[in-house]
């Protein structure tokens, strides 16, 4: 029984590993679905090509699932208010994501709400200025 359980766990681990190592674009996220995660930041990976937030999310029974949340690149993010030390392990956050289509606990960040109420997105284009607002002479 123990052997069988171990084998099943090993197979599951291999399956997850194979799935997660497959390269993908943002098309792997289901843009028609949103999931709201209320949890605690485990780690904030401030790096290129994309930043990631690891969030421990408890369910109704108290079981913890660790979600990986993919953000934009740091250069995109700083233009919308992000900083590398904005999140720390232990911070309580509410994160809205488009989840992976394959059901694994990863998602593309839509918004994150910090404990102080600040809401940020994954990084976006700088806003255009109205014509005439830029001095060129």
């Amino acid at each position, binding site marked *: 029984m123990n052997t069988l359980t171990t084998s099943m766990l090993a197979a599951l681990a291999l399956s997850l590993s194979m799935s997660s190592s497959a390269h993908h674009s943002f098309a792997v996220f289901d843009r028609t679905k949103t999931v709201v995660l209320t949890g605690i930041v485990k780690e904030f990976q401030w790096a*290129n090509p994309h930043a990631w937030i690891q969030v421990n999310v408890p369910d109704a029974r108290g079981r913890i699932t660790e979600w990986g949340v993919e953000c934009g690149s740091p250069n995109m993010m700083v233009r919308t208010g992000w900083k590398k030390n904005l999140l720390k392990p232990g911070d309580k956050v509410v994160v809205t994501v488009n989840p992976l289509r394959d059901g694994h606990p990863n998602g593309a960040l839509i918004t994150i709400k910090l404990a102080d109420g600040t809401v940020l997105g994954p990084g976006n*284009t700088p806003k255009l200025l109205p014509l005439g607002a830029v001095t060129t002479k």
Partner: protein
Amino acid sequence: MLSSMRSRRSWTSASIVLLALCGIAACSRPAPTLTDAKAASKPVSQFTGVWIPTGSFEDPAGPAPWQNTPWPEHPPFTQWGAAESKRLDDHSSFRACTPTGPVFFMWEIGLFPIQIVQAPDQLIILRETNGIPRRIYTDGRAHPEDLEPTWMGHSVGHWEDGVLVVDTIGLNGKARALNGVGANAQVSSEDAKPRMPSSDALHLVERFKLVANDELLEDEITINDAKAYTQPVVLKHYFQRRPDIDMLEYNCNDYPRDDTVASDSAKGRT
């Protein structure tokens, strides 16, 4: 005093050596220069600065009346072009660290700024997420006859009444789609359009000019690629001058995760 004498003596010695080397008749003729070519290519518009593409995911065309040309719903594909477009439409073809070619470099979506540095003999365009710049020679040179294919190709430009006309060839045909990263990779109506491939036969003609009281840069791009398209594709992209924005650093493979969108290319598997 002593140093002055030494200086005069060395100048005299140098003159004698120079005359001996080149001969009086030869040195009386002006040395070959690019003066004439430079005069013919004198820059009359100032493009130096940081610019943001005017489109966004929500509004790829950008504000009227200076709007980015929509990508074609039905591009004039050759058989090869249609097949290549289909290949690029598969999201597994997407590699975040694969360089863009010169067309996607001038993307109409303003996610990342570009910076133009205009020197007397060339114009350099940097894109925040690209390690390879575009370099457009304006010193009158022609394309080399035997070009090694590269990601950005070889660009030469000349001025026509304030318009910089740029001719680019020598592409390696390996860059991403001309119109973006990959189907459904971003949230934009343009992502539903066919991917626009290119080959090593790509030949671009661009006309850069300032419009809207010099606040916008217009890049009219004519895409000639007989392997991929049965006729040229012409479009205009616009950029807003933004002295308030600094270019930031980006290095695609800082910390590639197995499950990040860039994993394969960041690990050198492309």
